[in-house]
Protein backbone atom coordinates (compact mmCIF):
# COMPACT_ATOMS: atom_id res chain seq x y z
CA UNK A 1 0.00 0.00 0.00
CA UNK A 2 2.77 2.39 0.97
CA UNK A 3 4.74 1.28 -2.05
CA UNK A 4 1.74 2.04 -4.24
CA UNK A 5 1.72 5.58 -2.86
CA UNK A 6 5.40 5.98 -3.78
CA UNK A 7 4.67 4.88 -7.34
CA UNK A 8 1.67 7.18 -7.62
CA UNK A 9 3.79 10.10 -6.46
CA UNK A 10 6.59 9.24 -8.84
CA UNK A 11 3.99 9.27 -11.62
CA UNK A 12 2.65 12.67 -10.52
CA UNK A 13 6.12 14.21 -10.21
CA UNK A 14 7.18 12.70 -13.55
CA UNK A 15 4.04 13.99 -15.25
CA UNK A 16 4.57 17.42 -13.71
CA UNK A 17 8.14 17.48 -15.05
CA UNK A 18 7.09 16.53 -18.58
CA UNK A 19 4.08 18.86 -18.63
CA UNK A 20 6.04 21.91 -17.50
CA UNK A 21 8.81 21.07 -19.98
CA UNK A 22 6.22 20.96 -22.79
CA UNK A 23 4.74 24.30 -21.67
CA UNK A 24 8.25 25.72 -21.57
CA UNK A 25 9.18 24.61 -25.06
CA UNK A 26 5.78 25.83 -26.32
CA UNK A 27 6.72 29.21 -24.80
CA UNK A 28 3.55 29.44 -22.73
CA UNK A 29 3.54 31.68 -19.71
CA UNK A 30 3.25 29.85 -16.36
CA UNK A 31 -0.34 28.62 -16.14
CA UNK A 32 -2.95 26.88 -14.07
CA UNK A 33 -2.04 23.36 -15.19
CA UNK A 34 1.68 23.61 -14.57
CA UNK A 35 1.25 25.25 -11.18
CA UNK A 36 -1.63 22.90 -10.35
CA UNK A 37 0.59 19.90 -10.93
CA UNK A 38 3.24 21.33 -8.62
CA UNK A 39 0.51 21.80 -6.00
CA UNK A 40 -0.47 18.15 -6.51
CA UNK A 41 3.14 17.11 -5.94
CA UNK A 42 3.18 19.09 -2.71
CA UNK A 43 -0.11 17.58 -1.54
CA UNK A 44 1.23 14.11 -2.29
CA UNK A 45 4.31 14.82 -0.19
CA UNK A 46 2.15 16.06 2.69
CA UNK A 47 0.15 12.82 2.52
CA UNK A 48 3.44 10.94 2.43
CA UNK A 49 4.53 12.75 5.58
CA UNK A 50 1.26 11.83 7.31
CA UNK A 51 1.50 8.19 6.21
CA UNK A 52 5.15 7.69 7.13
CA UNK A 53 4.68 9.46 10.48
CA UNK A 54 1.71 7.21 11.25
CA UNK A 55 3.67 4.13 10.20
CA UNK A 56 6.64 5.21 12.33
CA UNK A 57 4.42 5.77 15.36
CA UNK A 58 3.04 2.28 14.72
CA UNK A 59 6.56 0.89 15.04
CA UNK A 60 7.58 0.66 11.36
CA UNK A 61 10.92 2.11 10.31
CA UNK A 62 12.75 3.07 7.13
CA UNK A 63 15.02 0.08 6.67
CA UNK A 64 18.01 2.14 5.49
CA UNK A 65 18.03 5.09 7.85
CA UNK A 66 15.01 6.62 9.52
CA UNK A 67 16.72 9.97 10.03
CA UNK A 68 17.85 10.17 6.41
CA UNK A 69 14.37 9.33 5.17
CA UNK A 70 12.71 12.12 7.12
CA UNK A 71 15.45 14.60 6.21
CA UNK A 72 14.78 13.88 2.55
CA UNK A 73 11.05 14.22 3.09
CA UNK A 74 11.40 17.52 4.95
CA UNK A 75 13.59 19.02 2.22
CA UNK A 76 11.39 17.60 -0.56
CA UNK A 77 8.39 19.36 1.02
CA UNK A 78 10.18 22.70 0.56
CA UNK A 79 11.14 22.13 -3.07
CA UNK A 80 7.76 22.71 -4.83
CA UNK A 81 7.12 25.80 -2.68
CA UNK A 82 10.51 27.31 -3.51
CA UNK A 83 10.14 26.36 -7.18
CA UNK A 84 6.75 28.08 -7.49
CA UNK A 85 8.03 31.14 -5.63
CA UNK A 86 11.18 31.38 -7.76
CA UNK A 87 9.28 30.81 -11.01
CA UNK A 88 6.67 33.49 -10.33
CA UNK A 89 9.12 36.24 -9.39
CA UNK A 90 9.38 36.88 -13.10
CA UNK A 91 6.60 35.46 -15.22
CA UNK A 92 7.93 34.27 -18.53
CA UNK A 93 7.94 30.97 -20.35
CA UNK A 94 11.20 30.24 -18.55
CA UNK A 95 9.15 29.91 -15.37
CA UNK A 96 7.96 26.55 -16.70
CA UNK A 97 11.53 25.26 -16.81
CA UNK A 98 12.05 26.34 -13.20
CA UNK A 99 8.93 24.37 -12.26
CA UNK A 100 10.29 21.41 -14.24
CA UNK A 101 13.55 21.54 -12.27
CA UNK A 102 11.55 21.53 -9.02
CA UNK A 103 9.30 18.65 -10.07
CA UNK A 104 12.25 16.59 -11.31
CA UNK A 105 14.12 17.21 -8.07
CA UNK A 106 11.16 15.84 -6.12
CA UNK A 107 11.06 12.87 -8.51
CA UNK A 108 14.70 12.02 -7.81
CA UNK A 109 14.28 12.54 -4.07
CA UNK A 110 11.23 10.25 -4.03
CA UNK A 111 13.20 7.54 -5.80
CA UNK A 112 15.92 7.91 -3.17
CA UNK A 113 13.35 7.86 -0.35
CA UNK A 114 11.90 4.68 -1.81
CA UNK A 115 15.27 2.89 -1.55
CA UNK A 116 15.72 4.26 1.96
CA UNK A 117 12.38 2.96 3.16
CA UNK A 118 12.26 -0.49 1.56
Amino acid at each position, binding site marked *: MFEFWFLAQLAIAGAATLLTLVFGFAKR*SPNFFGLGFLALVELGLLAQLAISLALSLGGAEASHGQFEFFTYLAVALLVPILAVFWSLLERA*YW*SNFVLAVGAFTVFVMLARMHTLWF
Partner: protein
Amino acid sequence: MPKKTVPLAPARYSGFSRVLVAVYGVFALAASGRATFELFTKFDLAPFSYSLSALSALVYLVVAATLASKRARLQSIARVALWFELVGVVSVGTAGFFVAELNNFHTVWWLYGAAYACLPVILPIFGLLYLRRQRKVLAN
Protein backbone atom coordinates in the same frame (compact mmCIF):
# COMPACT_ATOMS: atom_id res chain seq x y z
CA MET B 1 -6.39 27.69 -24.25
CA PRO B 2 -5.23 31.09 -25.56
CA LYS B 3 -1.59 31.15 -26.39
CA LYS B 4 0.35 33.64 -24.33
CA THR B 5 3.98 34.21 -25.06
CA VAL B 6 6.49 36.55 -23.51
CA PRO B 7 8.81 37.51 -26.35
CA LEU B 8 11.02 40.13 -24.69
CA ALA B 9 14.67 39.57 -25.50
CA PRO B 10 16.24 40.73 -22.20
CA ALA B 11 13.74 38.65 -20.22
CA ARG B 12 14.90 35.65 -22.21
CA TYR B 13 18.39 35.87 -20.83
CA SER B 14 17.35 36.64 -17.31
CA GLY B 15 14.83 33.78 -17.54
CA PHE B 16 17.60 31.43 -18.55
CA SER B 17 19.66 32.55 -15.58
CA ARG B 18 16.68 31.81 -13.32
CA VAL B 19 16.62 28.21 -14.51
CA LEU B 20 20.40 27.96 -14.02
CA VAL B 21 20.05 29.36 -10.51
CA ALA B 22 17.29 26.83 -9.76
CA VAL B 23 19.52 23.97 -10.88
CA TYR B 24 22.46 25.37 -8.92
CA GLY B 25 20.19 25.73 -5.90
CA VAL B 26 19.30 22.04 -6.14
CA PHE B 27 22.97 21.14 -6.51
CA ALA B 28 23.93 23.34 -3.56
CA LEU B 29 21.27 21.63 -1.48
CA ALA B 30 22.22 18.11 -2.57
CA ALA B 31 25.98 18.60 -2.33
CA SER B 32 25.94 20.31 1.06
CA GLY B 33 23.53 17.71 2.44
CA ARG B 34 25.76 14.97 1.14
CA ALA B 35 28.95 16.65 2.41
CA THR B 36 27.48 17.20 5.89
CA PHE B 37 26.38 13.59 6.06
CA GLU B 38 29.80 12.32 4.96
CA LEU B 39 31.65 14.65 7.29
CA PHE B 40 29.83 13.32 10.35
CA THR B 41 29.54 9.63 9.49
CA LYS B 42 32.45 8.39 7.38
CA PHE B 43 35.00 11.13 6.82
CA ASP B 44 37.97 8.82 7.58
CA LEU B 45 37.03 6.52 4.72
CA ALA B 46 38.14 8.94 2.00
CA PRO B 47 39.13 12.29 3.55
CA PHE B 48 40.43 13.87 0.35
CA SER B 49 37.39 12.95 -1.76
CA TYR B 50 34.98 14.09 0.92
CA SER B 51 36.82 17.39 1.32
CA LEU B 52 36.47 17.90 -2.41
CA SER B 53 32.72 17.23 -2.15
CA ALA B 54 32.44 19.81 0.62
CA LEU B 55 34.40 22.29 -1.48
CA SER B 56 32.13 21.74 -4.49
CA ALA B 57 29.09 22.22 -2.24
CA LEU B 58 30.50 25.60 -1.24
CA VAL B 59 31.09 26.54 -4.88
CA TYR B 60 27.50 25.62 -5.79
CA LEU B 61 26.21 27.80 -2.96
CA VAL B 62 28.29 30.76 -4.15
CA VAL B 63 27.15 30.36 -7.77
CA ALA B 64 23.49 29.97 -6.78
CA ALA B 65 23.72 33.15 -4.72
CA THR B 66 25.54 35.34 -7.25
CA LEU B 67 24.78 34.17 -10.81
CA ALA B 68 21.42 35.91 -11.38
CA SER B 69 22.60 39.20 -9.96
CA LYS B 70 22.79 42.25 -12.20
CA ARG B 71 25.62 43.75 -10.17
CA ALA B 72 29.02 43.57 -11.81
CA ARG B 73 30.84 42.69 -8.60
CA LEU B 74 28.63 39.69 -7.83
CA GLN B 75 28.81 38.63 -11.45
CA SER B 76 32.58 38.54 -11.31
CA ILE B 77 32.40 36.42 -8.13
CA ALA B 78 30.10 34.07 -10.03
CA ARG B 79 32.55 34.01 -12.94
CA VAL B 80 35.47 33.05 -10.68
CA ALA B 81 33.38 30.35 -8.97
CA LEU B 82 32.25 28.92 -12.33
CA TRP B 83 35.82 28.77 -13.66
CA PHE B 84 36.91 27.13 -10.43
CA GLU B 85 34.15 24.56 -10.78
CA LEU B 86 34.96 23.86 -14.43
CA VAL B 87 38.69 23.47 -13.77
CA GLY B 88 37.94 21.40 -10.67
CA VAL B 89 35.60 18.93 -12.34
CA VAL B 90 37.82 18.52 -15.40
CA SER B 91 41.01 18.03 -13.38
CA VAL B 92 39.46 15.72 -10.77
CA GLY B 93 37.62 13.78 -13.49
CA THR B 94 40.84 13.35 -15.45
CA ALA B 95 42.97 12.63 -12.38
CA GLY B 96 40.54 9.81 -11.54
CA PHE B 97 42.01 7.78 -14.40
CA PHE B 98 45.48 7.92 -12.85
CA VAL B 99 45.09 8.41 -9.09
CA ALA B 100 43.44 5.46 -7.34
CA GLU B 101 42.24 7.61 -4.46
CA LEU B 102 40.08 9.69 -6.78
CA ASN B 103 38.80 6.81 -8.89
CA ASN B 104 35.64 6.21 -6.88
CA PHE B 105 32.22 7.65 -6.30
CA HIS B 106 33.27 9.38 -3.06
CA THR B 107 33.50 12.75 -4.79
CA VAL B 108 30.80 14.59 -6.73
CA TRP B 109 33.38 15.33 -9.44
CA TRP B 110 34.23 11.68 -10.11
CA LEU B 111 34.30 10.86 -13.86
CA TYR B 112 33.30 14.46 -14.69
CA GLY B 113 30.22 14.15 -12.49
CA ALA B 114 28.83 11.09 -14.27
CA ALA B 115 26.77 10.17 -11.20
CA TYR B 116 24.91 13.46 -11.68
CA ALA B 117 24.34 13.09 -15.43
CA CYS B 118 27.59 15.00 -16.12
CA LEU B 119 25.79 18.20 -15.08
CA PRO B 120 28.82 19.25 -12.94
CA VAL B 121 30.81 19.71 -16.16
CA ILE B 122 27.95 21.03 -18.33
CA LEU B 123 26.53 23.60 -15.91
CA PRO B 124 29.62 25.83 -15.53
CA ILE B 125 29.91 26.06 -19.33
CA PHE B 126 26.31 27.28 -19.58
CA GLY B 127 26.90 29.63 -16.66
CA LEU B 128 29.98 31.17 -18.24
CA LEU B 129 28.21 31.52 -21.61
CA TYR B 130 25.32 33.25 -19.86
CA LEU B 131 27.66 35.71 -18.11
CA ARG B 132 29.45 36.48 -21.36
CA ARG B 133 26.14 37.13 -23.12
CA GLN B 134 24.95 39.21 -20.19
CA ARG B 135 28.06 41.36 -20.43
CA LYS B 136 27.37 41.98 -24.12
CA VAL B 137 23.74 42.91 -23.42
CA LEU B 138 24.83 45.36 -20.73
CA ALA B 139 27.53 46.85 -22.98
CA ASN B 140 25.03 47.66 -25.75
